[in-house]
């Protein structure tokens, strides 16, 4: 992971997107390096989601280039993006509440024994591997057979993030992962982000809470009216600066 010449996992250059006559994005450029957490911030409608949807393969850009590990690519579909290692964790869509952690973890990637047309689950392997991964990412006290409905919001985010990492996620896109969480739960999610970051995974974080995003991100990309207004290293910008920039963007 991340031994490419200029060290970029993802680079977008002059990305533009128009919906009819509406310009949603105009010449947006930024980079994401391996093991880097980028905070993508901006007011509602600034274009964060459009940018993310392009990176996830949902939208095709009207103009511009996407480079994945220094190679120009065209994303055909969300499946294509996922296969490259671009994984998105949606806040409410990530997990099936009525299923156990292990069954969620391996959903659509179940370890199975094939017998004719049927694929029989290797339940033991599912549970053992899930327990191992949970320990790896620093969640120690959860049993893989526990239904997800029994987990706290932070634990759910942690499980969802752990799953994308386990299945080859190289760039995780987290869409407001902490918006419904308490302070303690938020810390839990951030500690998981730190864990996967330490393993070389890159993260793009969309977050409305400037204190949170400043806490966890290495770099902050401010989007305003469909363009990049600023790209700051965390040390160059304070929470107050960020809030001022965003307020000025209204």
């Amino acid at each position, binding site marked *: 992971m991340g031994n490419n010449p200029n060290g970029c996992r993802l680079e977008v250059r002059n990305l533009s997107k128009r919906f009819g006559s509406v310009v949603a994005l105009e010449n947006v450029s930024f980079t994401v390096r391996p093991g880097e957490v980028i905070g993508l911030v901006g007011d509602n409608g600034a274009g964060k989601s459009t940018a993310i949807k392009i990176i996830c393969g949902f939208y095709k850009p009207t103009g511009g280039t996407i480079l994945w590990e220094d190679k120009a690519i065209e994303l055909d579909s969300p499946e294509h993006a996922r296969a490259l290692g671009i994984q998105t964790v949606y806040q409410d*869509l990530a997990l099936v509440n009525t*299923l156990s952690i292990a069954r969620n973890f391996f959903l*659509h990637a179940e370890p199975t024994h094939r017998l004719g047309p049927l694929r029989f689950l290797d339940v033991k392997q599912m549970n053992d591997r899930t327990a191992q991964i949970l320990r790896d990412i620093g969640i120690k006290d*959860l049993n893989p057979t526990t*239904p997800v409905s029994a987990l706290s919001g932070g634990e759910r985010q942690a499980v969802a993030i752990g799953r994308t990492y386990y299945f080859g996620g190289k760039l995780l896109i987290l869409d407001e992962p902490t918006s*419904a969480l308490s302070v303690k739960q938020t810390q839990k999610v951030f500690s998981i982000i730190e864990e996967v970051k330490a393993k070389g995974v890159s993260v793009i974080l969309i977050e409305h809470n400037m204190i949170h995003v400043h806490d966890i991100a290495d770099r902050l990309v401010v989007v305003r009216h469909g363009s990049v207004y600023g790209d700051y290293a965390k040390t160059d910008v304070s929470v107050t600066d960020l809030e001022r920039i965003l307020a000025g963007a209204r």
Partner: protein
Amino acid sequence: MQEGRLLMNSVEEDGATESPRTIRPSLMHRVVRVPELMVLLALLIVILGFVILAPTTFLSPRNIGAILTASAQLGVAAIGAAILIIAGEFDISVGSNYAFSGIAIGLLSTSGGFPTWLAVIFGLLISTAIGLANGGITLGTRIPSFITTLGTWLVWFGLTLALSKGYFVAVKPNDPLIRVIGGALGYQFYSSVFWWVGIGIIAIVLLGRTALGNWIFAVGGNADAARAVGVPAGRVKLFAFGFMGLLAGVSALFTLGQQGSMAPLYGQNLALQAIAAAVIGGTLLTGGAGSVLGAMLGAVLMSMINSGLILAGAPTFWYQTFVGAIVIIAVVINTSISRRVAQMK
């Protein structure tokens, strides 16, 4: 964000507050994990009650045979209903499918001149196709299946009347294959019970121990999450509809085996009774959780109540009242479970 969040359509998008809570599994999560618990308890109470009310007759071999045979006919449809509800869908048209395929088998094997085995295969193909059609219409129109199958229930029923011209249709008397499928074995015990148990075991394994089973739970529990990781949600639901249709045909075969004939008016309560059995057996009406074994036990419970009321000398119309009350109790318990599950998002 004017674009809205990626793919997000949850009603709880905002304002979900986190309440402090322990990780220790609550009673509710135990019930979610062992959905048959409730119906087992109910069975125990009902057996005890009828043993007291009808001590000599209720546990006689003849009565046990009769209860199990009735359970097989309802229970095989309940298996399909449970799987379909777990997948997040309903089929109200099951009764019409049952009557239509039974009459089709009867007509094909008699006036159609087909050998019985071929008529049976055609009949099951027809019932499966009807199930798939229900699914196709539902998924194609994106109308709730409760409504689409309410419509197809009448459509298939009309076709049943047209096909039968309103008359009973009989199969060949003493046909060996029909006897194997649903013939009498003595003590009011019919061979359909074995088929039912066999199908039940297959369905339990399918749901609990295969990848497809995992996907069925997932599309019913959170179809968007399942799609997001690549589960072909439409095809999984279509499978559940088709399987429901197939089992409606099997239920019709059981009736043909038991009675030798099918009437166009038979089975009009079958869909709701099958759904009732599934719900009594712990299947959540909201999808994503439930049990084939529970649905089978739910069918036994309903058959037991029917038989017990007769033996206890109560007028049989109390059966409906009784089952209705139990369904409401079951749904109240299930909904309080699923509501709390939903609140925990």
